[in-house]
């Protein structure tokens, strides 16, 4: 893969694009936007494969984090915010919430998140799906920073039980 072999990259795409698309979709919500992000993610994987360090973790973990970071960057980009604003207007016009929104509650990470206690779930959503820092979450939720860290860690440990 590091030698940028076309076949290997094709295999990588076939094998992982579905899972990564699922994660991206759960962050950016819109399939169109998620497709753009996934394209950017695979091009980044192609470009940055040299910086992948097998000693620091598995390839999937590396790609997963690239996907999540790209999704959160998209979430915060001006273009995305404008498109969401337009989306809201459209939603209001047609009085529907489901025009382009895909129902993702039953799939992927969200499926596992749903099993968490609400106070744990909100922390993971803010941290993992919205990309807020522990400090920001402490402000939003008005709880001490140390508590945020502890609760997130406990929530993750709980989430892991559900992953199995």
């Amino acid at each position, binding site marked *: 893969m590091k030698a940028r072999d076309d076949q290997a990259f094709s295999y990588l795409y076939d094998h992982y694009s579905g899972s990564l*698309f699922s994660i991206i979709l759960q962050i950016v919500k819109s399939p169109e936007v998620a497709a753009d992000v996934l394209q950017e993610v695979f091009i980044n994987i192609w470009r940055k494969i040299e910086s992948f360090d097998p000693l620091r973790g598995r390839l999937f973990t590396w790609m997963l984090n690239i996907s999540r970071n790209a999704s959160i960057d998209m979430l915060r980009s001006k273009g995305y915010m404008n498109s969401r604003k337009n989306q809201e207007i459209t939603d209001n016009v047609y009085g529907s919430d489901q025009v382009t929104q895909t129902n993702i509650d039953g799939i992927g990470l969200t499926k596992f998140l749903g099993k968490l206690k609400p106070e744990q779930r909100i922390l993971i959503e803010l941290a993992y799906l919205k990309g807020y820092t522990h400090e920001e979450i402490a402000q939003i939720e008005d709880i001490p920073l140390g508590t945020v860290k502890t609760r997130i860690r406990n929530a993750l440990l709980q989430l892991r039980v559900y992953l199995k």
Partner: protein
Amino acid sequence: MTPQEYILSGIVESYVLGLASPEDCAEFELMCDAHQEVRAARNAFELELEQSLLQQKMQPPRALKSRIFSEIGMEKDEQPPLIISGKPILIPRKGFARYVAAASLILLLGSVLLNLYLLNQYKRSIAQYKELAATQTQIAGDNQIRQTKLETYENALGHMKSPLMAIVKMPGAPSSPAPSSMATVYWNTESKEVYLLVNQLPMPVKDKQYQLWAIVDGRPVDAGIFDMDKDLSFVKLKTIPKAEAFAITLEKKGGSITPNMDAMYVMGKVTG
């Protein structure tokens, strides 16, 4: 905190999912390096996560793959690929390593050549230095000799210039074996010291030496022997209180008590 407690603290999950702070990440990586069990725990969670999420796929748009590959293809075209049997093979990494290897070899070779060059320069400099040092020693030696000669000349000249000196010229005697011979006695009228300047005398044979005689009351008195091997034959001989004339004969080495009259080369009378 033991590695076990550390593993169970939730750091593994935070790190893998990208939710740990930079400080926690740095600490976790150090713990991974230090403790095999932390590394194993990380790997175990990564596998679980991967297996779980691989079952949660959503199909991205079908056209996306070709879009990605065409964009990558354009990027590849920007770098010159090696085409072998129609299949593009990129060699950025290996090629780069090869370039680096080649560059290091060239640098190494360059360094070796430079060192050889510098070594030669050094050897040449050392040789030049030795040569110069030898020349310098020789010049110093020559200078010493000239200095000595100069002193001799100055000394001689000083005596010759002295107004106290009586000058006795001794031309070749009528019966001289070398009639064109000539010598001069400088006789200090006060201290009575006698100096001899050889103007012209043939070189004596090996076992002979010239001897100066003072003629006192008609009888020859030994005034000293002298050699001819010096550049300037201006030599101080014996002090003679009183004399009417001076003469030089060739005697056996070491001098004689009475002169060999057959071998009288020069003679001159004291005037005034």
